[in-house]
């Protein structure tokens, strides 16, 4: 009797699960690295004088060696508007001011955010790494998927523009002040 009800329940659940197609699981790191490489297309940096049109896009990583390796692999053959990527592992938050984007986790998060505040640096933090402090993009895991919060107000402080397509994907978006 009890066994029958248990089996009925399993069968029902199995039927419900049969419909959607199976999809392989992927590592969190590679999805995030792909995201970081992709964000660059959807963010506009203020023009920097003397910067060559084919200067590399500098992606900096603080406190996450495995992520830096993955990011390096993801961007190895990629160009964006003719510009290659340059992945740099840096240790000092102050050095982040020279990056186009910085992915930072761990103990240096708050120092890094402070060091580049108001500068044209796309700060990327990671709630899934256990950090609370948020950069412009803040990764989180939602229902086993990599998602992110967006702080467009902070992006505005540094003169960055984020495309509406990117904004529409934010789990939450802190809007920039109306100008």
């Amino acid at each position: 009797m009890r066994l029958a009800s248990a089996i009925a329940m399993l069968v029902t659940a199995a039927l419900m699960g049969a419909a959607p197609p199976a999809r392989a699981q992927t590592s969190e790191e590679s999805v995030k690295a792909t995201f970081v490489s992709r964000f660059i297309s959807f963010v506009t940096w203020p023009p920097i004088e003397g910067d060559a049109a084919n200067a590399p896009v500098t992606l900096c990583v603080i406190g996450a060696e495995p992520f830096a390796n993955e990011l390096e692999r993801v961007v190895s053959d990629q160009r964006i508007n003719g510009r290659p990527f340059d992945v740099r592992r840096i240790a000092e938050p102050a050095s982040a001011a020279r990056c186009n984007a910085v992915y930072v986790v761990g103990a240096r998060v708050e120092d890094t955010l402070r060091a580049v505040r108001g500068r044209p640096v796309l700060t990327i933090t990671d709630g899934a790494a256990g950090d609370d402090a948020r950069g412009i993009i803040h990764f989180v895991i939602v229902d086993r998927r990599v998602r992110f919060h967006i702080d467009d107000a902070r992006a505005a402080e540094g003169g960055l523009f984020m495309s509406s397509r990117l904004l529409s994907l934010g789990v939450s978006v802190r809007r920039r002040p109306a100008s």
Partner: protein
Amino acid sequence: MESGRRSGLIAGSAAVLAGVLLAGAAMPAEAQTQSNDALETELDALSLEQLSEVEVTSVSGSAQPVGEAPAAIYVITSDDIERGGIRSIPGALRLAPNLQVARIDASTFGVTARGFNQSSGTANKLLVLMDGRIVYTPLFSGVFWDEQNAIMEDLDRIEVVSGPGGSLWGSNAVNGVINIVSRNAHETQGLLVTGGASDAAQALGVRYGARFGDAGAVRVYGLGLRRAVNEPAEWRNMQAGFRADWGDARDALTLQGDVYTGDQDQLPGQFSDTTISGGNILGRWTRRFSDASAFQVQAYVDRTQRHISSGIRADVDAAAIDAQYNFSLGSAHQIVLGAGARVTSDTFTPGPGTVFLDPDSRTLQTYNVFAQDTVTLSPSLELIAGLKLENNSYSGLEYMPSARLAWRPDPNALVWAAVSRAVRTPSRFDKDLINGVTFTGGPDFTSEEVVAYELGYRAQPDDRFWYSISAYYNVYDDLRTVEGTTAFVFPLQVRNGMHGETYGIEAWGSYAVTDWWRLNAGLWLLEKDLALDAGSTDVFGVGFAGNDPDVQASLRSLMDFGERTQFDLAIRYVGDLPSPSVPSYVGVDARIGYRVTDRLELSIAGYNLLDEGHVEFINPSLPPRETSRSFFISARWRS
């Protein structure tokens, strides 16, 4: 003759006390990190939108960041809970190597840290919070675990701190703090159906989550449980609830609530049937001013009702409000200031011929203020000093200070040391329990006190391996005793006639043998040296303060075979208990999980595979009840 009669009376009183003090029992009643080229190419081809729909498995989920608080903290992750095939909160707590969890019967558990477990399920030196709501009862300062339920998939984590947490959390955080944290509603979207069955238990939970507006999300859920351990004794519980979260980078709002009802049939000739019901609602608002500054205010109301067919009724209403402000002062100080108030109002209706509380209804108030300063002494050295002042209706002003030192000799290691004081404030049963001429409450009972000295080391030498080891020396004073007041012993009175020390070691670690195989191990050692004060006329002896093993050890093996199959094995050893005597036991659990599709997972788990059954804990007023071998088939489907 007289001494025989006297010991008979004492035994009788012990039974009454055990039955009520102890009404707890009476009333009860990896991750796939392979960089597969095909997969990566596939990722490159995906649009941003598609990328955000790719399911991942988390590596970080199993690691304990070294940067955590300088305390003996173990975090039970949602991954641990899912893989453990866990279906109850006490079941999840078994995963924490710094807790003692002993099952008494279908719905009653003894849960404590660093000893002082109570065979009747009334351990009283832990502070337990669910999403910031205090869940221990003012009746006896313990937790009715049968009232604490949740859909396990909706839990984010359970933080278990052993050792005092009074300076931040307040009274009752004497031997530890358990913080049960549910997921943000943004993280529980879509439909989840989870359930399972064994020959003695069934469970079913359904949750649905949706978004609203720009930045809001909500989930609603319902769950039902049925468990028969010693038929006809059976426990049934139904619960429903919701959680709504709204937030942007500046403000976050949470509103959540639960209602539940449950009942337990007892064995004929034992305590009578018990019915429980209750509900709570909680709101929380957080504003972030900057990365280092935030304000939070939280308030809740909570009602619990417990009725026994013999006539005993215990109803408790609680309401609380807490506010907290963090900010930096210069570059070296990170300050937290807070204040809070909690009011409980209870009514205890005695059954015919049972003990009663005098007065039968009481409103208790607790007010507190606290401050904590994290001082950066050098880039690698931090001092955290805190003090909580709390005023309660019974014992007045209590002070709970702590000082913690954290030294990071390198980024992957933490050495910490702490000295802290915490108290357990008097409960209704300590103060107001009356039984005719034999028992006259505890008019002079004051708070129990601990001063704890702790030393710990935590390190993560590489990505594969992390561990934590800590040692403590706890000095207790004014522990509860039940004392004779005359040459004829009676009436008995609750007093603070015991003192002593405990010391022990809590260690755990995790090692990834390969990408698909992880081992977790834990070791727990406890020595107690308790004594009665000079002049104490205690009738029960120091053994009454707690029934604890002196060793516990655990080993878990977690294996992933490909992307779909998991095989986990857990072995647990718990040393023997002195009184009531329970032999040591080894429990072996195994689980196989199989992902049929991305949305559907099936599993089969076997518990206590080594023997037909064993006793974990004996409530002196009930016959011993075995936890028996069982198999549980379950299914989980997500949209």
